[in-house]
C-alpha cells in the first residue's frame, strides 16, 4: 500500500559525505581557501559554548557561566554520485578544542595553512594533527610584503617530518587550492599504500 512516507523518500542516490579540514592560525586564509574551491558559497554555522570561569569575583569559587559562539564555515565539492566532499575551516580561535576533536574525527586529512607573516600561528595545528595521526599537508600562504620562505625553510621552522608535503599556495587562487587538495589526497593514499610510493 502506498503511504505518505514513500513520497518523501529520496529517489536519487545518497552520496557518502567525507571531509577535509582546513586549519591554520587566525586570518591565515582558511575561509578564503574553502571559498575558492567550494561549489557553493561557503555556509556558515555556529556552535554555542558555555564559558565557565571560576572564582573570578567574591562569590569565591562559584562557577560563572556565559555563552560564546564560534563560527564554523564549510564548503562542498560534489565528487561524483557516490561521494560529496566537505571542507571545514577550523574556528579561528584555537582554544575551542572540542570543535577540533569533532572535526578531525573521521576526516580524510587536513591542510594546515601556514601564514608567512606569522609562521608560529600554525604550530598548534601541526601538533594537533601529528598527535592525532591525521595526515596533513602544509600549504604556505604567502601574503604580500611578508618574508618569502622557501619550502625547506618552512619545513625546518615547523619541524614537520620529511614525508609531510609542504607546498606554496595562494588561497585566493582556485587552481592553487586544487593543487593543495590533490597533494593532500595523494599524500593520504601514499601513506596507506607504502608499496606504491616508490
Amino acid at each position: 500500500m502506498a503511504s505518505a512516507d514513500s513520497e518523501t523518500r529520496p529517489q536519487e542516490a545518497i552520496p557518502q559525505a567525507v571531509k577535509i579540514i582546513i586549519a591554520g592560525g587566525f586570518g591565515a586564509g582558511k575561509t578564503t581557501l574553502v571559498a575558492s574551491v567550494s561549489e557553493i558559497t561557503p555556509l556558515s554555522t555556529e556552535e554555542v559554548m558555555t564559558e565557565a570561569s571560576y572564582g573570578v569575583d567574591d562569590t569565591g569559587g562559584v562557577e560563572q557561566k556565559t555563552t560564546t559562539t564560534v563560527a564554523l564555515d564549510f564548503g562542498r565539492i560534489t565528487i561524483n554520485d557516490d561521494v560529496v566532499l566537505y571542507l571545514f575551516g577550523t574556528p579561528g580561535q584555537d582554544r575551542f578544542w572540542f570543535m577540533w576533536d569533532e572535526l578531525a574525527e573521521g576526516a580524510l586529512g587536513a591542510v594546515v595553512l601556514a601564514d608567512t607573516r606569522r609562521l608560529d600561528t600554525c604550530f598548534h595545528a601541526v601538533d594537533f594533527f601529528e598527535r592525532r595521526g591525521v595526515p596533513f599537508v602544509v600549504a604556505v600562504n604567502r601574503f604580500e610584503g611578508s618574508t618569502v620562505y622557501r619550502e625547506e625553510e618552512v619545513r625546518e621552522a615547523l619541524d614537520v617530518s620529511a614525508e609531510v608535503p609542504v607546498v606554496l599556495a595562494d588561497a585566493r587562487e582556485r587552481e592553487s587550492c586544487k593543487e593543495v587538495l590533490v597533494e593532500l589526497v595523494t599524500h593520504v593514499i601514499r601513506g596507506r599504500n607504502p608499496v606504491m610510493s616508490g
Partner: protein
Amino acid sequence: MRTDGVHGRGAAASALPEEVFRRSEPDARSHDEEFGQERFLRPFAVTAGDPDAHAVLGPESSGLDMLSLVVAARVPGRHEWLRPERGAILGHALRARTVVELAAEVRLPVGQVRGIVAAMVADGSLQRCGPSRSLGRQDILHAVLVGLRSL
C-alpha cells in the same frame, strides 16, 4: 618546556607565551585546569518535562555527527507553525541532508540542530540514512583524487 623532542617548532617559538604550548594539548578537555580562569565547554540544556525544549546535544549524546545524513520521513504538517524550526528542518530535508547543512540552512547552532534532529529522528519525523553505496576508504580516496583533479 616541551619534552617531546619537537625542538625545531619549540625553539622557533621560544619567544611565544607559554600559553601557546598549553593549548597544544591534543585533548584540552582533560586539561581544563591549565587554562587558568576560563574554559570552554560544550553546552547542554535540561529539558525535563518540556517536550518542545531543545536540548543542545554533542555528537556523543545524540549519536549524530556533523555529517550524519537524515531525510524527511513525512511532509511538514499543519501543526508545524508551533515549532517552526522543525518545519524548516523538514522542508530542507526532503532530500537527504547532513546535520551541518541543516544547521546552516535554518541558521541555528549545530549543537541545537543536533538536539532537534535527534528528537525528530526519535519521533519518526526524520529518518537517518546511510549512503546508497558504501565505498571502502581507498575507493573514496581515489574518487576524491579524480574528482579534485577534474575540478
